[in-house]
């Protein structure tokens, strides 16, 4: 639901049904909502059956990459004599994204249950939930939920009386965007600097502590209990874009918009209706100029593109961007695009782990040049220089942070070139005049 606003009739609140409901936070309240029935059911099944149901549901990773969850789980080979791990990525740091925060604040037991089912399905004895250090309230709620679950025998050596061991632990990060990258998260959990690792080996072969590991986003894991309870067909049927994109998705909406918040809609929902109807359109007296629909790392959309978009993995790609994490940043006509893109570049420069030269140097120089254009000190060559740096930053590094910094710059210059040129030529940019010309 559009937390902190009342649910909109066109939303489909599955994961967000209890946002704002204090009664669902604790174990007793959660049980009254049907909590832990899915885990009970799962523990009576064969792990392979659970993986098959998740595969059939078409659930794809909600953290950004959209990889099919069931397939990811099937890469794990239980019974090979090694320890196995499940990591839950709760390092939600992508600018514009705040969905996992609300999942953990309002329904911490849903995540405990999702982790326990996931761990059991992939044959992992231990699951670690890595939560960013700034999330003090979600951390506290998750720790309390895990404690309650152990005390009630839901977790531990004899999970729900099944005779099977399931351990879930909460791990607190310490401030680093890059730790949301899966292998950086594993390094951080091991007590190292959060530098991403070269792949291969992939986590399913050598992940956390060098052992086979699966890593899933919070929203992905909390969808699993619903899929187990209602079936793969139910999950597919609610989507307007089945079978490629299935189920419902949480979108966090922020920036210049009348009703910012978390909205849950089915895959394939029209983005235009989403922005103007559910979220209330632009703030009074303003108009929308641009949208960054999937967190700061995805290409910027013009309104023309955004209004033609279907909200699913393929729909966003068709309109020149990506679904990403579902963090929708809306920018209105009062904002200078150059200033906003410069700020994004600064973010990536700050967060670069600095192990790859292209990223360390590229993010810093991009920021420097963007800021001088912003300040009216840009030169005619700057746009070409920026594009050349961006080219050298794309597809050449261990992880995609470098690419993510290049993305808003390249899409910004392509779609809002007039604003850049006006600042360089020290003229005033008139969008209407530019459209006529």
């Amino acid at each position, binding site marked *: 639901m559009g937390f902190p606003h009342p649910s909109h009739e066109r939303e489909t609140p599955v994961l967000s049904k209890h946002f704002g409901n204090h009664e669902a936070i604790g174990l007793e309240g959660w049980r009254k909502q049907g909590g832990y029935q899915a885990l009970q059911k799962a523990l009576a099944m064969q792990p392979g059956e659970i993986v098959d149901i998740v595969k059939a549901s078409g659930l794809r990773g909600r953290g950004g990459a959209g990889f099919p969850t069931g397939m990811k789980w099937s890469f794990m080979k239980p019974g090979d004599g090694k320890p196995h791990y499940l990591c839950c990525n709760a390092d939600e740091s992508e600018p514009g994204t705040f969905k996992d925060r609300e999942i953990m604040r309002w329904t911490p037991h849903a995540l405990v249950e999702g982790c326990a089912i996931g761990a059991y399905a992939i044959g992992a004895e231990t699951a670690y939930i890595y939560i960013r250090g700034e999330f*003090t309230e979600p951390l506290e709620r998750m720790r309390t939920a895990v404690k309650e679950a152990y005390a009630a025998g839901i977790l531990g050596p004899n999970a729900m009386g099944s005779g099977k061991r399931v351990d879930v632990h909460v791990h607190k990060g310490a401030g680093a965007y890059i730790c949301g990258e899966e292998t950086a998260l594993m390094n951080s959990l091991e007590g190292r600097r959060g530098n991403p690792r070269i792949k291969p080996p992939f986590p399913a072969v050598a992940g956390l502590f060098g052992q086979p590991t699966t890593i899933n986003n919070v929203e992905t894991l909390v969808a699993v209990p619903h899929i187990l309870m209602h079936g793969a067909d139910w999950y597919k049927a609610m989507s307007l874009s089945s079978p490629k994109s299935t189920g419902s998705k949480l979108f966090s909406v922020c920036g210049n918009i009348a009703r910012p918040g978390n909205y849950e809609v089915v895959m394939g929902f029209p983005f235009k209706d989403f922005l103007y109807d559910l979220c209330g359109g632009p703030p009074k007296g303003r108009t929308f100029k641009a949208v960054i629909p999937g967190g700061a790392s995805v290409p910027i959309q013009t309104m023309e593109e955004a209004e033609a978009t279907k909200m699913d993995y393929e729909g966003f790609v068709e309109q020149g961007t990506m679904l990403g994490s579902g963090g929708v940043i809306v920018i209105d006509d009062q904002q200078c695009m150059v200033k906003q893109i410069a700020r994004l570049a600064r973010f990536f420069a700050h967060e670069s782990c600095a192990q790859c030269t292209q990223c360390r140097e590229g993010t810093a120089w991009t920021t420097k040049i963007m800021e001088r254009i912003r300040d009216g000190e840009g030169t005619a060559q700057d746009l070409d220089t920026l594009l050349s740096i961006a080219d050298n930053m794309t597809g050449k590094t261990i992880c995609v942070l470098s690419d993510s910094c290049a993305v808003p710059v390249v899409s910004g210059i392509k779609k809002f070139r007039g604003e850049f040129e006006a600042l360089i030529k020290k003229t005033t940019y008139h969008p209407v005049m530019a459209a006529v010309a």
Partner: protein
Amino acid sequence: MTLSSTATLVHGHDEQYAPVFVGERRKELEEMFTRYPTKMACLLPTLWIVQEERGWVSDAGMAEVAELLELTPAYVKGVVTFYTMYHQHPVGKYFIQVCTTSPCGVCGAEDVVKALLEKTGCGELGVTSKDGKYTVIEVECLGACGFATPLMINDLVVESVTPERVPEILAGLS
């Protein structure tokens, strides 16, 4: 090497360094060891405990952690400096982080920063006010973008802050 000898090796602020991991905190550490296959995995959590107890992570604190986890102090320092949330020097009683990343930036976060610097008397980012009460810094995305502009005051998140609300928020602290 014993803990007390570690402490005497470190000069500067901490010649009187008293170990953090005694009594309950020591028990907490022993329990923590059971959750991970390596002692090193306890590094971030133990550094958090040092900061909770002392308000920051000193070289002596790092040395204590290093010894407990069978690491070198240099390794621990390498990890501490990677992460933004460990304070490597003392900070004000109220450590105020303002999110100024783009989603908050388009909603006026810069004005909130200005109001905070003025009303706390800090004047500059990262500088502690003369009375030792406040340190204000800009922070990258607090993950509360729908509630722009969020502040984090020590462990407390305050949502939807405007420059007008700053005096009332500061008054509520003391």
